[in-house]
């Protein structure tokens, strides 16, 4: 089925930002996570830990604390002294409010969710009342005014570090009037709040205890240290049957190399994140009832969306960074080789363009047209479109100055296959169709979402995925309510809606010949929907019956891109972080159950391997971790790898130098 020449690209310097803080909302089963660059991500824990929403960062925003209110209100506070509430549909700040206390270091919400307390640089604690659509300043608790009812002085560290000041990084207040503190001397201490006395000291680290979290029913505390460890304490009775309980240090996890800045605990797992940028969801085996996706250790390193777009014909790659775009032209070779060989690079890859964004807002989406002449990107505040002229070695870029007024911000951008149209998924859940040409850019049409009769009107969520057909007739959009709408571009009207499946679509594409829509979901399911027939195809039904997902379930990361092979129309190429695979729709699926081959060494093809050729699923995990896989013309594949070691090498040195050789 195929020999491919592979552009193995490692020059996408993607660098995720470190994790600063997080908050778990058990009612919604979602985790909100703030990164050092001011971006906020929301992970849906009941949907295979999918990164459901990303609110792009802003240069002026630095988040120090994050808080949920109710099921769907999210607040952050940071060093710019502002409190921000976010619009979780439009994925941008709803409003910001200055607390007037200087930088805000910490925030907490009371359990009734009526008030916020913000700890400010000037030493004051500001109390805000939470109202249905805003928060309102109520009172100021000043350190000097003697409000405090109890003063606890945390001891300095053990001998040798006594000359250093001890900073309490974190406190937690339990309902039984126990105060838990984590400090820079590596201690987790338990205090009696009524008497102000120390109950117990646990020395957990030689360095700082940076984060603390108490489980919802207050029987477990987790603490993150700057050594990269997470330590769990549990409230246990020393003897079986004894009613008296005490906090006992139980487990220690070491999944991080750097500061663990944020920890939290869900019902079944300890979640931690820190400067090493990865989110680690570590299952607590005693809480996991059945062996399922919950019982697997997960590390989220890359975003669950594609940051790379590809212009196939001119072999261009567009890389999206928060603050810039990079356009590269792939290299080439004159020689032909046998499978397994590396070919000499006769034309080196070239960085054609580095496009810095304007303003403080980070780039949230970007795209390049198939022909390579158009680049578009969007932040939460603006959309920009550029025309690119590339003759021989001269590259000129022109910003299209007059964009239609309807374009304000986009959640997803996509050019049509013939590059004549730009589809803009707006923050209002509509899709604008813009015709682009050298002379002008014109607003052609706006598709309004066809609301499901079962959903209340106006609830339609913004679109996060777009796919256009090769013949220019169909456009599909997927939104965060798992709705997939199909629009007819010729007739400019809504065509149909794909039956709603209760997992977020993670990638979709329309087949260039059959116009069948292929969708993968966050739970690793895959469906094929015949757009013309408005029904699932036979292959899709067979797939559901035979279960392709059985092989795929092993990988915890969602599929982020789907493409087709123009040379062999039956081949679908899709990838996640760990592998890419080719599914041949013309081959029987029954082979999948019996055989599953990984192809670490794809070179040896003897006669005995012949039956493998009839296997519908071919997997290649030679390249990883993957950020992007796409098929260019003439059996050229492009894989964009980002080795983790490259990410690690850009991190600051960890506090505890790891031992040689490990």
């Amino acid at each position, binding site marked *: *089925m*195929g*020999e*491919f*020449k*592979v*552009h*193995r*690209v*490692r*020059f996408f310097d993607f660098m995720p930002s470190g994790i600063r803080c997080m908050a778990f909302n058990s009612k919604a089963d979602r985790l909100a996570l703030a990164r050092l660059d001011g971006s906020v991500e929301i992970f849906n824990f009941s949907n295979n830990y999918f990164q459901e929403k990303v609110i792009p960062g802003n240069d002026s925003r630095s988040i120090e604390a994050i808080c949920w209110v109710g099921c769907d209100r999210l607040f952050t506070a940071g060093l710019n002294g502002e409190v921000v509430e976010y619009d979780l549909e439009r994925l941008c700040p709803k409003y910001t409010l200055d607390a007037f206390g200087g930088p805000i270091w910490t925030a907490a919400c009371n359990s009734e969710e009526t008030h916020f307390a913000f700890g400010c640089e000037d030493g004051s604690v500001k109390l805000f009342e939470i109202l249905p659509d805003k928060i309102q300043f109520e009172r100021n608790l000043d350190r000097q005014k003697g409000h405090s009812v109890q003063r606890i002085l945390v001891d300095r560290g053990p001998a040798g570090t006594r000359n250093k000041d001890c900073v309490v990084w974190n406190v937690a207040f339990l309902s039984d009037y126990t105060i838990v503190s984590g400090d820079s001397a590596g201690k987790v201490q338990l205090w009696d709040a009524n008497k102000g006395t120390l109950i117990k000291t646990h020395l957990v680290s030689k360095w700082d205890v940076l984060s603390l979290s108490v489980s919802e029913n207050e029987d477990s505390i987790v603490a993150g240290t700057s050594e990269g460890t997470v330590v769990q304490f*549990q409230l*246990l*009775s*020393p*003897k*079986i049957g004894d009613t008296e309980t005490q906090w*006992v240090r*139980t*487990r220690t996890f070491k999944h991080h190399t750097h500061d663990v800045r944020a920890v939290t605990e869900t019902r079944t797992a300890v979640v931690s994140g820190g400067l090493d940028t990865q989110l680690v969801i570590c299952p607590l*085996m*005693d809480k996991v009832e059945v062996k399922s996706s919950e019982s697997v250790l997960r590390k989220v390193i890359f975003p669950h969306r594609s940051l790379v777009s590809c212009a196939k014909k001119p072999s261009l790659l567009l890389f999206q960074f928060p603050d810039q775009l990079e356009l590269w032209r792939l*290299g*080439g*070779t004159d020689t032909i*080789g*046998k*499978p*397994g*060989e*590396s*070919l*000499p*690079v006769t034309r*080196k*890859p070239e960085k054609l363009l580095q496009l810095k964004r304007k303003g403080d807002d980070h780039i949230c989406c970007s795209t390049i047209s198939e022909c390579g002449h158009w680049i578009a990107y969007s932040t939460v505040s603006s959309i920009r479109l550029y025309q690119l002229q590339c003759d021989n070695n001269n590259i000129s870029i022109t910003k299209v100055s007059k964009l239609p007024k309807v374009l304000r911000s986009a959640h997803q951008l996509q050019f049509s296959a013939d590059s004549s149209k730009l589809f803009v998924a707006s923050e209002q859940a509509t899709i604008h169709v813009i015709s682009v040409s050298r002379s002008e850019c014109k607003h052609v049409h706006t598709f309004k979402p066809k609301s499901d009769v079962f959903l209340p009107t106006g609830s339609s969520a913004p679109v996060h995925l777009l796919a256009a057909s090769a013949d220019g007739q169909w456009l599909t959009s997927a939104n965060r309510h798992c709705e997939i709408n199909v629009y007819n571009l010729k007739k400019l009207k809504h065509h149909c809606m794909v039956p709603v499946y209760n997992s977020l679509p993670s990638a979709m594409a329309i087949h260039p010949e059959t116009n069948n829509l292929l969708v993968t979901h966050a739970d690793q399911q895959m469906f094929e929907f015949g757009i013309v027939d408005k029904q699932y195809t036979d292959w899709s039904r067979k797939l559901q019956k035979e279960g392709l997902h059985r092989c795929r379930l092993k990988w915890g990361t969602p599929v982020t891109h789907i493409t087709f092979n123009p040379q062999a129309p039956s081949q679908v190429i899709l990838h996640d972080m760990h592998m890419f695979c*080719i599914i041949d729709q013309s081959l029987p699926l029954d082979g999948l159950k019996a055989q599953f081959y990984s*192809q670490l060494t*794809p*070179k040896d*093809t003897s006669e005995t*391997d012949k039956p*493998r*050729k009839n296997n519908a699923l*071919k997997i*290649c995990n*030679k390249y990883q971790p993957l950020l992007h896989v796409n098929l260019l013309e003439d059996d050229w*594949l492009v894989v964009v790898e980002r080795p983790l070691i490259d990410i690690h090498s850009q991190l600051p040195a960890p506090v505890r130098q790891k*031992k*040689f*050789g*490990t």
Partner: protein
Amino acid sequence: MAELYEGFTLCGLAAGQSRENSGLLGIEPGRDTDHVIVTGAGRTVTVYKVSDQKPLGSWAAKQGQAVTCPAVLHGQTGEYVAVHDSKVLRIWRDEDINFEKVFKATLSAAVSRIHALPSSEPLVLFQRGAVRQLDALLAAPQQAVEEVLSEEEVIRWSSCFLEAEQPLLLFSTEKSGECFLYLQKLSPNVLHKYNIGSEGKGVCPIGFTATLEDKCITLMCLYSNGCVYKLLVSLHPSVEGEQHLPKSLLMKLPVSEGVLHRAAIACLEEGHIAIVGAPPSASTGDRDFLCIWKTNFPTPQASKELPGGADGPLWCNAGKLYVTHGKVLTVLPYRCEKSSLAAALGKLKQTSTQGDVYKAFCLYWGCVGVSREEVEEVLEPFLSCSPVSPQFQLGLAHIAVELLKRCQADPGFYPQSVLARLAQTGRLSHSSCPGFLMLALEKHDYFLAQLCLQHFPDIPEAVICACLKAFLSVADADLAQVSVDLEGVSLVDGPGQSLEVVQNGFSPVLLEEDSCDVQLTPPKLDQSSSWTDMSLTCPLFLQYLQYLYVRSSGDVYTQLPGLRAPTMTQIMDWVSLLLDAHFAVLVMAPEAKGLLAQLHRFVRSQVRLYSELGKIQGTLQELGKIKKEQEIGLYSIEVIELF
């Protein structure tokens, strides 16, 4: 290892006894370990003091009467009990002289055997299967005795035990080819019957022995086809009625003609059994051997040829085996050592007397001044065959030791090729022939030294150091003639990989050649200046260290999920799972405290070891990395094929 010491004759047997009838009814323990009661097949009962080989007392029944069951000593009263003419019970003391005048009681049924127990009343087993305690029987000698066995069912063997002050009697019966086992408990009187099942046509049990351990009777049964089966008889069977007793094959004796007619088995200590009437190996055609076997690994541990024909019966009492052969009763003291790792690895000094065949060889070379050629000639066929018995291994060690002695005594004698062949068998170790490697060094035989390093698992540090010194000081010119294989040094095969690969880095071609003589196969050694001493010795030394390391750590990671025992990885999985899920419980449970502390200590030591390994891994990992980094830059073009 078990050992058989030099035996002695206790007494002669009555003349005219045929081979089928050994002339002895039985040997029973006397008043202490040094006394035995020998009951002759005719009319006599004699008490011997074994160490003095002297009879202390003898009693004989009247002419025309025959003692029909071995006399036993009533442990509580110090009286002897015997039966003559099947039904007449006799009880007497040491001081009684006239057998005719001692206590006599006539019973209502024929007695099969009387079993004495050290601290309990003797048990009387009647031929029809009933069991009585002696005192109960004496109270009413003419009492009716029930018939337990069916018609034509005959008792073949019986034995009794004392479990928790309760006497037990186990006896086996045979009825038209079928075998049954009965377990009789007294107070309460319970009888269990088992069917042992038959072993095919013409195959019948010819010897039994049983031991009681951990509330379970282990019965070993020798069949006429040479198989020894093990049957476990529970003392508290749950099922009523006749049960089928499953048996497991313990070992199969090498029976050359296929059928044993007469042989006897006796259970010794520490998993050893003694068998008389079957040879230790098939090649030893004659059967007049007494052999001690280990049952865990069916290997002969010691053997003794008994002239005049010995095929049972066999008794065992107080560390001595009693066997009749020819016209004498011979006493053979034996010793069964607890098997230890040291013994298994050959680290315990062997002082035993096994391997008469090899001994003969050894004496031949050691004493007679045969030439090197003669030795080669004699040994060549011997080494060419590849038997795997432990005797062969021990024999090899003997040969090696004798050759060494000879070499040391006679500087001109150095059978290099034989020594090399010996080393290449892979069955020698440093402890089995100390001095072997040093001899090679003395003779500057680096080829042999390398062989030793490659095949000996247990070279002490000091000797390795000596080797290193020798290697480092060797002149290049010397090496030019030596067939030290430098090519193969880097290819190290762990000992656990497979049995075929014991060459440990040697090219198979070299091994397959008949002779590895220095002169015959001078290797094509590129004696360029780049060869330094270190490049020769370092890899070799590292290879040896790795060999030792792999050996000591076992094939932890190459093992498949264990069929018998769980593999290391499986154990780790379970430990992790258990600790992960129940750590809190374990921490709180007081009874787990010691265990956890112990586990922690062990794990800590392992972690220390692994941190050292981490360093090694780090060092070696860099090698691989350098290669890779060169290959993949920021951009490359590759061709792949998906199929």
